[in-house]
């Protein structure tokens, strides 16, 4: 196996339901051993791509290769990929042990050997003492781990995870994120993770593909996606962004095109105080929202747009808590992201990578 060979290669992948293209010509290479996330709102096609890779759906056109082999026309049970389902899909009539041993059973592994391996898999997800329980006797987090053990015990080349943490509460979700990352590192297999939670995708992934309307809007590392969004959609969907359209950009930045700046990159002070920033603008404080570690300020600029500012609640925070006070906000030019070039000549001025 060469390192250059992608674990999964999608070429021109399209899936239509009726006259709707759920997946619209997706080309994608997923590197072996990486934690890859497909991020997007519901209906963006990310889950359909996952189901196409798993083989539950047949593509309308395009091909899917697994480690250089074309698997487009193979049945799900004939592909070396396994899925962790959103609802876990544990067999309710089987014990936890039988659930995990199922993949080995249908492959004809002897009873002793498959129970041995299933026990080991359950030990790695710290469920060794629950082997005799039925899935209905487990909590959501435990079911999640059984589903992980069941999918990994057959040692797939690629593990597909369809919003596996969606049904868990926040604390458990954060804990499972850490466990997932550890599991992926220990197993060394490729994870393809579907989520609509941008925080989750940023936390876990080596790379992220942001989906919108069946297409990949942007592909990159979490830092690239967050710091350098390539389109207004990505800037708005991943985290919070202040997006300035052409007119506002002219007024505020003296530039044409659409631009964005993250709320935490904007600094704020009360009016007439000096602010160390490349660019400043004056406005009125419209709302103050306390969110624990930070405070969110909403400022109505005199230029006629509304800007969200995020201030850390540390010792340096200026006490701008009165609604209606006049403030000055500012940012550095390096924090401004150009989302699209001015409309008249897009071909020449499109600068993003």
């Amino acid at each position, binding site marked *: 196996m060469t390192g250059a060979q992608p674990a999964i290669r999608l070429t021109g992948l399209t899936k239509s339901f009726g006259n709707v293209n759920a997946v619209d010509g997706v080309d994608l290479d997923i590197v072996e051993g990486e934690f890859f996330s497909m991020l997007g709102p519901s209906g963006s096609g990310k889950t359909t791509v996952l189901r196409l890779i*798993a*083989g*539950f759906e047949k593509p309308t056109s395009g091909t899917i290769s697994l480690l250089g082999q074309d698997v487009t026309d193979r*049945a*799900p*049970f004939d592909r070396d*990929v*396994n*899925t962790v*389902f*959103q*609802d876990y*899909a*544990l*067999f*309710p*009539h089987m014990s936890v042990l039988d659930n995990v041993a*199922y*993949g080995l*059973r*249908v*492959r004809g592994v002897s009873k002793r050997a498959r129970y041995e391996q299933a026990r080991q898999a359950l030990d790695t997800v710290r469920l060794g003492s629950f082997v005799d329980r039925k899935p209905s006797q487990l909590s959501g987090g435990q079911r999640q781990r059984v589903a992980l053990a*069941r*999918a990994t015990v*057959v040692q797939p080349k690629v593990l597909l995870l369809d919003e596996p943490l969606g049904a868990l509460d926040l604390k458990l979700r954060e804990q499972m994120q850490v466990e997932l990352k550890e599991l992926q590192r220990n197993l060394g297999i490729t994870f393809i993770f579907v989520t609509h939670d941008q925080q989750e995708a940023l936390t876990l992934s080596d790379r992220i593909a942001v989906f919108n309307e069946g297409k990949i809007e942007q592909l990159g590392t979490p830092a690239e996606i967050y710091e350098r969004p390539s389109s207004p959609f990505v800037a708005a969907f991943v985290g919070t962004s202040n997006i300035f359209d052409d007119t506002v950009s002219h007024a505020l930045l003296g530039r044409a095109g659409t631009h964005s700046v993250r709320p935490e990159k904007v600094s704020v002070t009360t009016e007439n105080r000096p602010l160390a920033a490349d660019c400043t603008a004056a406005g009125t404080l*419209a709302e103050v929202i306390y969110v624990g570690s930070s405070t969110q300020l909403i400022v*109505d600029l005199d230029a006629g747009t*509304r800007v969200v500012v995020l201030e850390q609640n540390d010792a340096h925070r200026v006490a701008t808590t009165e*609604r*209606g006070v006049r403030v000055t906000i500012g940012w550095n030019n390096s924090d401004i992201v150009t989302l699209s070039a001015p409309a008249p000549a897009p071909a020449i001025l499109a600068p993003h990578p």
Partner: protein
Amino acid sequence: MMVDASAPPTRRAVVPLRQGTIARRGSVFLSRHPRLRLSLLLGAPLFWLGLVYIAALAALLITALWTVDSFTGQISQTWTVDNIVAVLTGSLYQTVTLRTLGVALLVTIIDIVIALPIAFYMAKVASPRAQRILVIAILMPLWASYLVKAYAWRSVLSQGGIFEWLVSPFGGHSPGYGLPATIITLSYLWLPYVILPIYAGLERVPDSLLEASGDLGGGTWSTLRLVVLPMIWPAIIAGSIFSFSLSLGDYITVNIVGGANQMLGNLVYTNVGAANNLPLAAAIALVPILIIFAYLAAVRRTGALNNL
């Protein structure tokens, strides 16, 4: 987006609580007396169940222990187990019991074999629209009278009937009237009662379980055997209870298409009517009841009823 902070909050109209009406006081009383609530809910149906089912069964058992004066034809209320001994040891009764049991079992097996693929298609393959149409199509025969359907089969299976017309080009011929015709007709009559519970059972199996099985490497056969069948086993049992018990008690179909064959129901019928021996009829009627009890006990041992 701008909110004028100086505007006063909107005044809300006060929603009055209705109090003091008789209906309301009744509701309050009931909500404080859960036992009364329960007895009002279940009183009438339990009374009906007790009268019709339990009392009738008890009357049957008692009648079976009486006898008929062969001279006057009057029921004499002297206690005896002669009827029951006669039914258990008489070779006629044994033969008919075995025949009835065989017919009921075959009908049940045929119905399950036919119902499984139809129910699977309805629950897992057909579009929602086709699904609704199929449910109606399966329920439709139940709107027609039992007798009409039995006589229809009599005509279908008659000499020169549709069945013969269909199979004669291939060298086949109609089975005529007899046990095969009885089994075919009963299978037809009870099929909806078997399809519907199995369909409902399959509806409750999430598609993701079938996908998970395939995903883990299970082919079609493994998925059916290890995932689908165990999960719909209670539904199959429920369907089989319908076809089995309905076949055990039937006496009209066998009269219409069964030729000279008799089933337990016919013996009961003739003993009540022509032979005027109600106690013996009651003793015979106990046989299917015992068989059903044995069947339910056997089913229970498989654990199929635990998940109902």
